[in-house]
């Protein structure tokens, strides 16, 4: 029996050993989506016909004694900014709903399908990936399975809710300033934002090209690694994809993580007013026996620069729509998008120069440490439909604009990050960022796996609300 909390690798093992079939797993997933999606609003399209055909193909190969891929029969879904052949890529926007259907899958979707994974649908998101709460006036707000009155986080909120709600074991999201890590934190999931340039973005709608990443969200580290490994590899179709090798992580995930030098980010990453976030970091650091602290210099300026580059690039990208269809931008982001189009070049170029300076400083830190621990979000899931305000270092900050305050200074220079979920009894989950040096995803994954194995972090599927 494959239940809603089954891991992806367990599903694949059951399918390959004949305990169950890919078709039975797919029907169960489609049944759960039909039952649960009205509660959480995670899916904007269910690709049932494709899923049944892909599952049948896996079962046919197994019946003929042929080999199947490492992800055989695992249901997965993708944020609706990834191209899915035959489906219009809406990117959370009714403007894009007028576009023609995609003629082929995005590179990473194609690689997952080739490995036997079964695509069951496309997932809700903030319009054009702009927003941390996934409130979307076109397709409805995504609701958090741990408390449906609260946000699932954004912009990959549908990805968070689909996995946390037990509809799929793994989903793909994208992360420009925190859009994988924020929903992972709020939904109590493991999430991987790889090194900038590691995974191909071909066929994924851009937002701010200087920072756009894609990656998986899952309920276990093993599942993250299994999907991440299959998606790796060079892709000439994405000019930013600079990976030249595949560095498999799954086979070495359980190798000892103990020799890694770990430090806790202080200063900017430890302000007042974020008690639950810092308690989660403390929970993880105590388990790891870590006390060394490290200061990432000028993190506030790094965030400022990330905001300005994001504005300049997204304002440019959407200028034509802003000119002709401003009314079709979500009210929560319309003014910010319009203002973004007005950012002067001197700010954007200075931000890119600062990015170079900051990269050098952070690389100096990684000479002495391998892993930096930091909170993922300043709070757990905020209520939907209101301007939730946090007071951080004495300053009022809205969740809509500031849920990414701890994620932005890290994606700004493309560092790989794994979010791990801390879920204290009686509280909503909240994440901790495990940050590694560029191209060292394996270091962050090993620490995450160690914490998971020792029961320090965990992801659970709540009973349906």
């Amino acid at each position, binding site marked *: 029996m494959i239940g809603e909390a089954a891991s992806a690798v367990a599903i694949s093992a059951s399918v390959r050993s004949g305990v169950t079939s890919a078709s039975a797993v797919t029907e169960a997933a489609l049944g759960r989506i039909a039952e649960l999606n009205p509660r959480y609003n995670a899916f904007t399209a269910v690709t049932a016909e494709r899923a049944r055909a892909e599952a049948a193909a896996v079962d046919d190969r197994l019946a003929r004694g042929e080999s199947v891929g490492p992800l055989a029969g695992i249901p997965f879904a993708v944020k609706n900014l990834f191209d899915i052949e035959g489906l219009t890529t809406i990117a959370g926007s009714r403007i894009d709903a007028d576009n023609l259907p995609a003629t082929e899958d995005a590179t990473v979707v194609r690689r997952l399908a080739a490995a036997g994974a079964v695509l069951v649908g496309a997932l809700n998101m903030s319009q054009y990936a702009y927003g941390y709460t996934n409130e979307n006036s076109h397709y409805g707000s995504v609701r958090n399975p741990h408390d449906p009155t609260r946000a699932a986080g954004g912009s990959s909120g549908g990805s968070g809710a689909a996995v946390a709600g037990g509809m799929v074991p793994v989903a793909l999201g994208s992360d420009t300033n925190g859009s994988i890590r924020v929903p992972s934190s709020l939904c109590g999931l493991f999430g991987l934002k790889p090194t900038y340039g590691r995974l191909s973005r071909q066929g994924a709608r851009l937002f701010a090209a200087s920072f756009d990443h894609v990656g998986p969200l899952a309920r276990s580290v093993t599942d993250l690694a299994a999907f991440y490994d299959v998606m790796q590899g060079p892709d000439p179709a994405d000019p930013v994809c600079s990976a030249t090798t595949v560095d498999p992580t799954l086979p070495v995930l359980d190798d000892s993580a103990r020799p890694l030098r770990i430090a806790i980010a202080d200063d900017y990453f430890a302000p007042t007013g974020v008690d639950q976030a810092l308690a989660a970091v403390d929970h993880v650091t105590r388990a790891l026996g870590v006390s060394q602290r490290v200061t990432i210099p*000028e993190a*506030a300026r790094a965030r400022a620069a990330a905001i300005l580059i994001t504005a300049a690039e997204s304002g440019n990208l959407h200028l034509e729509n802003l000119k002709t269809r401003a009314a079709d931008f979500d009210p929560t982001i*319309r003014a910010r998008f*319009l203002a973004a*189009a007005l*950012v*002067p070049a001197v*700010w954007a*170029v200075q931000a890119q*120069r600062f990015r170079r300076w900051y990269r050098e400083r952070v690389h100096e830190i990684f000479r002495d440490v391998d892993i930096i621990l930091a909170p993922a979000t300043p709070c757990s899931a905020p209520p939907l439909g209101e301007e939730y305000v946090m007071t951080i270092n004495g300053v009022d900050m809205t969740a809509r604009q500031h849920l990414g305050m701890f994620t932005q200074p890290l994606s700004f220079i493309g560092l790989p990050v794994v979010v791990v979920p801390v879920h204290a009894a009686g509280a909503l989950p909240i994440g901790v960022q495990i940050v590694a040096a560029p191209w060292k995803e394996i270091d962050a994954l090993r620490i995450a796996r160690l914490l998971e194995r020792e029961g320090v972090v965990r992801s659970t599927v709540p009973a349906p609300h």
Partner: protein
Amino acid sequence: MPDATDSNSDSYVDVTSAAIGLSIAPAYRPAVVEAFRQLAATADLLMSFPLPDAIDPATVFRP
């Protein structure tokens, strides 16, 4: 350039939007001015940090 305390954020929004052909509906304008004022405050933080001339922008293009 306007800064966070510059009431000219108002006129900057008008002049620049006209220059790039972006017509902003009167109903949206106050929120856009406020959003731009926030960006200007963000830019103040960045622009007040001295950078050596030798620092390359982080954008790389490989022909």
